[in-house]
């Protein structure tokens, strides 16, 4: 029976032009979205390369200047930018701390349109004022991006709904159901076979069109086999989930139109409502402290600190006797006081900044607990992680940058407090930033999604055997 079903289903799908139509739609959607993703990644990568080149150029200039200064020549730069002063190097020759793009970054925009991909921390800037948000028109952020993740999460389920909502009901409506009932196969078996076949064809189309689009756009799908098959696997189990829902609806609900409405309702529920309600609840349960009030606190603190600069410097030097010892001149200027007080501000601000991280972690944990309510959330999370554009990735990057900023500052502190000039010999020792992406397991959400889908199929089976097949046929 399966082989008959297979043969006729294929003929049917080809004759009704479903396969042709679906291939066309899939190629168009995948093509447009992949192209968009690649374009964005390219722009980001370009800007990083450009920034690094600029640093190289300005470094060459700096070395030239240093050379002139060391030879005792007159230089034509503003006094405070001459690189023999360590603070000038630390402020005017910062390094590029860039978040390099991952090989799969194009599949999901994630938070990439919201955050910047490189910053240049300076010695006198404080961590709280490092701005990690990107300059984007908020309208674009509001509308979001037409990326592969959007096609997979939002549109693919709708294609499945359109492809499978009337598997049983159309037989009922055209009157061929009674004919079918005379065949030696259970009704739910028959629906299941039909849906499994459609799932098979759609999977094949997805796989082929995705590979095709990747190849045409110059990507090597098999260059990173684990991530590519992780992506395909994720798409397939997500599709299986929607086919499972369709199976349930086909068996339990009645006419074509009612099926379509029911499936659409489920789509709205899983893709639109559950994520936004979870997000809203997360925000209400663990509200972010007000940033405006944070500004107030920071300002008051800075004002206090500025008043007591001399005292702070004394305390700082008492805590760091190594600085007081090595310097023979003991001259103290603006930067000595400033850096010491910056240090204090940083220490005092830490608990406030931590409260944001803590609340974000709470929200994340809360979502982690309930994300099982909607496969759309699971898939979004996995795709973002695969692309390296999830919130965690950007938090991770931010932490690495803050650590690097500290390293950068610390590197120049001995120069400053020992009143030692920065020289050409010191240039090779200045710290560089290396972004270390978090290791991602792209297969992790596949088993639970598979279990959910299979569970739904099982539920459909159990339910329909209890609800006698003949009643479905008699209803027609």
């Amino acid at each position, binding site marked *: 029976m399966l082989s008959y079903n297979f043969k006729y289903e294929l003929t049917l799908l080809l004759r009704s032009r479903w396969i042709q139509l679906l291939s066309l739609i899939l190629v168009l959607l995948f093509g447009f979205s992949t192209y968009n993703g690649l374009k964005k990644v390219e722009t980001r990568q370009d800007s990083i390369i450009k920034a690094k080149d600029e640093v190289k150029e300005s470094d060459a200039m700096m070395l030239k200047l240093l050379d002139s200064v060391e030879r005792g020549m007159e230089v034509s730069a503003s006094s405070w930018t001459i690189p023999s002063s360590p603070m000038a190097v630390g402020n005017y020759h910062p390094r590029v701390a860039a978040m390099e793009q991952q090989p799969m970054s194009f599949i999901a925009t994630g938070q990439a349109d919201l955050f910047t991909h490189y*910053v240049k921390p300076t010695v006198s800037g404080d961590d709280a004022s490092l701005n990690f948000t990107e300059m984007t028109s908020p309208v674009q952020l509001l509308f979001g991006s037409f990326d592969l993740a959007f096609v997979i999460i939002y549109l693919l389920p709708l294609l499945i709904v359109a492809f499978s909502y009337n598997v049983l009901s159309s037989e009922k409506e055209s009157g061929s159901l009674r004919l079918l009932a005379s065949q030696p196969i259970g009704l739910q078996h028959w629906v299941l076979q039909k849906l499994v076949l459609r799932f098979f064809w759609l999977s094949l189309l997805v796989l082929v069109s995705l590979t095709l689009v990747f190849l045409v756009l110059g990507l090597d799908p098999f260059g990173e086999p684990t991530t590519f098959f992780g992506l395909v696997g994720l798409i397939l189990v997500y599709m299986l989930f929607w086919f499972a829902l369709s199976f349930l609806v086909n068996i339990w609900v009645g006419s074509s139109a009612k099926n379509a409405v029911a499936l659409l309702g489920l789509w709205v529920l899983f893709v639109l409502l559950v994520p936004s309600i979870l997000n809203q609840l997360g925000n209400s349960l663990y509200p972010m402290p*007000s940033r405006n009030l944070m500004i107030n606190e920071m300002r008051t603190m800075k004002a206090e600190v500025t008043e007591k600069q001399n005292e702070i410097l004394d305390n700082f030097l008492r805590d760091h006797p190594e600085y007081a010892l090595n310097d023979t001149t003991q001259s103290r200027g603006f930067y000595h006081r400033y850096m010491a007080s910056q240090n204090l501000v940083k220490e005092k601000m830490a608990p406030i900044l931590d409260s944001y991280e803590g609340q974000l972690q709470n929200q*994340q944990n809360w979502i982690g607990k309930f994300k099982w309510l909607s496969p759309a959330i699971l898939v979004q999370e996995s795709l*973002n992680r695969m692309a390296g554009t999830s919130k965690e990735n950007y938090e991770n990057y931010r932490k690495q940058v803050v650590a690097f900023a500290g390293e950068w500052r610390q590197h120049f502190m001995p120069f400053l407090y020992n009143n030692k000039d920065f020289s050409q010999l010191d240039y090779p020792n200045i710290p560089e930033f290396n972004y270390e992406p978090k290791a991602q397991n792209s297969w992790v959400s596949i088993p639970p999604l598979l279990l959910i889908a299979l569970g739904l199929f099982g539920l459909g089976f159990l339910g329909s055997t209890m609800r006698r097949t003949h009643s479905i046929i008699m209803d027609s």
Partner: protein
Amino acid sequence: MISKTFFKETKELFREGRVRISLIIVLLLLGVSVWISTRQFQNVNAQYAMAKTSERDVWDNQGEKNPHSAAHYGTYAFKPKYPLSLVDQGVDKYAGTSIFLEAHKRNEAQFSAAADQTGLARFGDLTPDFILLFILPLLIILLGYNSFTKEREMGTLTLLKSQGVSNWKWLLGKWSALFMPVLIITLTLFLIAGILLDNLQDFGVFNWNSLGVMFLVYMVYYAVFINIILLISSLVKKSGIALVASLCIWILACLAAPKAASNIAENKYPYPTRQEFAANVLQDKKEGLDGHDPWSKEAKQLEKQVLQEYGVDSLHQLPFNFNAYRMQKGEEHEAEIYFKHYNYLKEQYSNQSNIYRSLASISPYLPTRFLSMAIAHTDYDTHWDFADAAETYRIATQEFLNGNTAKNTQYGERGYKASADFWKQLPAFQYDPPELGSVLNRNTSNMVVLATWLFATFGLLFFTTKTL
């Protein structure tokens, strides 16, 4: 005949379980979303008021200080939430809420809410505008997809034709039966929002006119959707196909078109990255007058010019402190540079807007979205307005501070400190969003597009149903 059709259709709708259930769900969602938004609104505004007064305290109590130190210390401009954001949150979540106003630099608004949220936030929020823009059109589809197809399927079409009903009366009856539930839901929502806002005393700018115009915009949007759904229902033979086709339109108009538009707009007219922007500004600044640097070529030139103007031959003879004067000139020069670079951003955005507008021809969602945001003062234009006002205030503040130094000190004098009560003389930052009239003026093109949608779909519907 119109009223008979109307009553029959309405009765039929309310007898059906799925309609009752979906109406209840929509009302429930609306209730929840209004409740959440109201809480958020009050919360944010309380924080805003607190931040504003506390910031002013910090400024007023700086004590004795050099005015230019105070300029570097700076002050903040905070963006309030406007009353109608209760109905449409617009881009508020993605735009920064505070601008740091300091010497020499125009800063962008910082700390958008979205940057502090998890990745889930990008699915969207359960807010009234989400229900109004996405869910209600879906409800219309659900109620109306089989308006005509059911007559065919049940065979009542022939019966109806034998009655000698003129098609347009029949159509109008069906149309109003679809419109009525949507009208009631929206009207309830807007009335509740209006009453809620009317009772919040502190946040002044709410007026009923804006709410009314916004209501009208949504009514036009729904009318367009009803026209499209009825048009499909009258052209297609089967209910199932009518439903799927209507859904395709919905996906295209509400989901796909805005996202595609945003991608096309970004590809064609990209914004610079934050660092590129900063680098460009720095480049321009290097080439001009730096208020801190008396030895640059530009500074020498300014010196000569001022000496000539006052007919004296040394800076000491000027009636004001030349250092502070140069500082102010440098400030003005830098402000010009920022003006130029921000204008470039605005230009890019207005080019992007043209793309949104041209794609509005396949999506009535786009003009509605833009109009609704604009009326609610939660659109990007209002944000620009606010940022510009803050910049004007920043420049005025610098003039105020540099002027004080110029007047009270001699050339070459160091260590001047303004008295502790001087800071209170700085007028507070005040920003009022544009009035309804000018908002509508700015959005005439969106209104024209929406009106075109309305009349075109009405016309099409009328002509196709002539021969049913």
